[in-house]
């Protein structure tokens, strides 16, 4: 993992994509109506691992995530995902190769658990038995009882909703999973269980993940790689252990202290 670091003399410019990375940002800048959220951001996420983007709210971390699935487009630089640039045409097919889970789960209230999870597979015209098999496999993987299949979201606990949300994100066996603070709206005990469940499922699925969070503990718990963002820049990026051992002075150092 390479990354820019505050104060270093632009080591990122012209950095070639790292072999085996599922997401690659090269000198990316994004502004809204002339206000730059960030500029000259470069980092990559290694395939098969979890990378966490950590920052305060307003640090632009959700914007980074939206650049990955093409909801937003960069004003500068390039974003490569799963070995290709985010396409201009047919972006829907591209997005279906990327799972998406969000804070509060975002389940469709008019659909049952089963309908929420298998919607995309039905739209992709998977055969019925393949859908059923995959659905059963995911429930099992996320520790959900099959009896919940025909319930509506409002009949589930917050933790159950979140697991269903992860099942939905994983349904099409995506190469990459985007996690937009999906664990932040549940109580701490449930959250711990969710972490275990997620780690188990991610290993089992072998999927790369990009997690956005403001919670350093969560990042350390789940991610092998960190990208710390603040003030419109990448403050530090690297393997979790390395960042923890030698945090950059200032914000990153204070953030790491919260873990001690």
């Amino acid at each position, binding site marked *: 993992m390479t990354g820019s670091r505050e104060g270093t003399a632009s080591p990122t410019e012209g950095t070639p994509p790292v072999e085996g990375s599922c997401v690659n940002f090269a000198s990316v800048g994004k502004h809204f109506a002339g206000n730059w959220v960030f500029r000259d951001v470069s980092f990559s996420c290694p395939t098969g691992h979890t990378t966490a983007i950590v920052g305060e709210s307003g640090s632009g971390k959700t914007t980074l995530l939206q650049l990955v699935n093409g909801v937003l487009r960069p004003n500068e630089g390039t974003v490569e995902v799963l070995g290709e640039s985010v396409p201009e045409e047919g972006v*829907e097919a591209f997005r279906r190769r990327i799972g998406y889970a969000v804070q509060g789960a975002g389940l469709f209230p008019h659909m049952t658990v089963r309908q929420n999870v298998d919607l995309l597979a039905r739209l992709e015209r998977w055969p019925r038995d393949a859908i059923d098999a995959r659905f059963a496999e995911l429930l099992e993987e996320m520790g959900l009882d099959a009896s919940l299949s025909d319930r509506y979201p409002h009949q589930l606990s917050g933790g159950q909703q979140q697991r269903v949300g992860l099942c939905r994100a994983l349904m099409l066996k995506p190469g990459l999973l985007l996690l937009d603070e999906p664990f932040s709206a549940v109580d701490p005990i449930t959250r711990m269980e969710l972490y275990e469940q997620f780690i188990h499922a991610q290993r089992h699925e072998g999927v790369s993940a990009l997690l956005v969070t403001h919670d350093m503990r969560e990042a350390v718990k789940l991610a092998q790689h960190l990208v710390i963002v603040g003030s419109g820049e990448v403050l530090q990026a690297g393997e979790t252990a390395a960042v923890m051992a030698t945090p950059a002075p200032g914000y990153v150092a204070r953030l790491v202290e919260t873990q001690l």
Partner: protein
Amino acid sequence: MTRLAAIVVLALCPVLISAEPIVVASKNFNESYILGEAVAQLLESGGFEVERRMGLGGTLICYEALVAGEIDIYVEYTGTLSQAILKSDSQLGFEDLNAAIAPLGLQLLPPFGFNNTYALAVPRALAEDLALNTISDLAARSGLKVAVSHEFLEREDGWPGLSRVYGFERVPQGIEHALAYQALADGAIHVTDAYSTDGELTRYDLRVVTDDRDFFPKYLAVPLVRADLPASAKARLGLVANTLDDAGMQAINASVMFGGADFEEAAAGYLDGIGVESETARSGFWEQLRRNTARHILLTAIALAAATCVGIALGLIVFRTGWLSRAVVYMTGLMQTIPSIALLALMIPLFGIGVVPAIAALFLYSLLPVVRNTVTALVTVDPILRRVSRAMGLTRGQELRHVFVPLSMPSMLAGIRTAAVICIGTATLAAFIGAGGLGDPIVTGLSLNDTGLIMQGAVPAALLAVATELMFEGIERALVPKHLRTSEA
């Protein structure tokens, strides 16, 4: 939805492709109903097939419908034709009138005989006390409260002309004609306009003051027909020529107003008097109710189906663009501010009279609730769900079909439901432009001041509204999961 459309089209067929009966119309006041019915019965007894369009909402609606060929006959008054329609300054004679309307394909047949002209009426006691014998006497006397019907106030052959000729200085109040007699009896007003054949003149003991300057034109009742009417039908209508004088018409009017006769009986009685045996081919109560209700449902269902399709489509097209959806909601809202009777009247130049303009007006009326509820529901879909459906890789169409539309369904249904109830209510006014429905007995009942008859339209309309509510609850139950329903919250 397709099944509904099919039913609607099937139901419309007999209306659109009926044979070619002679269409007889009347305006919505008693004398016109009676004379129209007499004409209809006279033709039926002569072997002609007749379709009735009674109770149209005024002179211009009848006249325009006749010119457009939507109706074949109605009974008009020569004075009305001369002044209100042809806008002639001078009083045209019968032959002049016929010459004037011939280019339009219209023709006057020989008059019934009586002259139902305007008159000013004063309570007899007051007239004797103040020695009011002529209109000039009235004009010379100050302090008399004058109230005239709204139409009289506006018409060139009414108050404006009258006040010029006689030099009236005051501007009278407008009053609903049916209320004027009671107001006279109560002493609230002293003078009003009346028709010289009104049954009320005797009942309320009123004196008609003499038109000493001969201002009021002759209002001879004449069958006004399309010139292309078969000669045999015209000949048949010749039988009414000079068969009724003022007193005779007054008596027939009184028999309906105060004697409990209905229009069909009054018309049959008159025809019997001139030696024509007619069958009052009146359908029974239930048959009429069935026909009116069926027509009412037809009007409402077509208008509502169209408003639903157009309204939802419009909502789906514009909701992603803020200013556009506001513009559309305002535009459809504008439609609602037009009084329904005015909207119906506005449809006549475009679609004539009958079912089509009524449906068009009801459609425009129903649009707002559908569009507004659709747009509101779509733009208020939880932004998290919008973000998720987008990030999942749903196409725009899939997003609408699987997320936006089902989530907006309760609100859309509520909008359609509101539109349906508005439609059922407003459709009762469609009778004014000859579209029939449950408004028919209401309009006739209003003219006759007959509460029972009004109820025959009002009660089924109310029941229809309730049934519609129940139906929509059923539809919602079928389409919306329980926890998202609005009606069971």
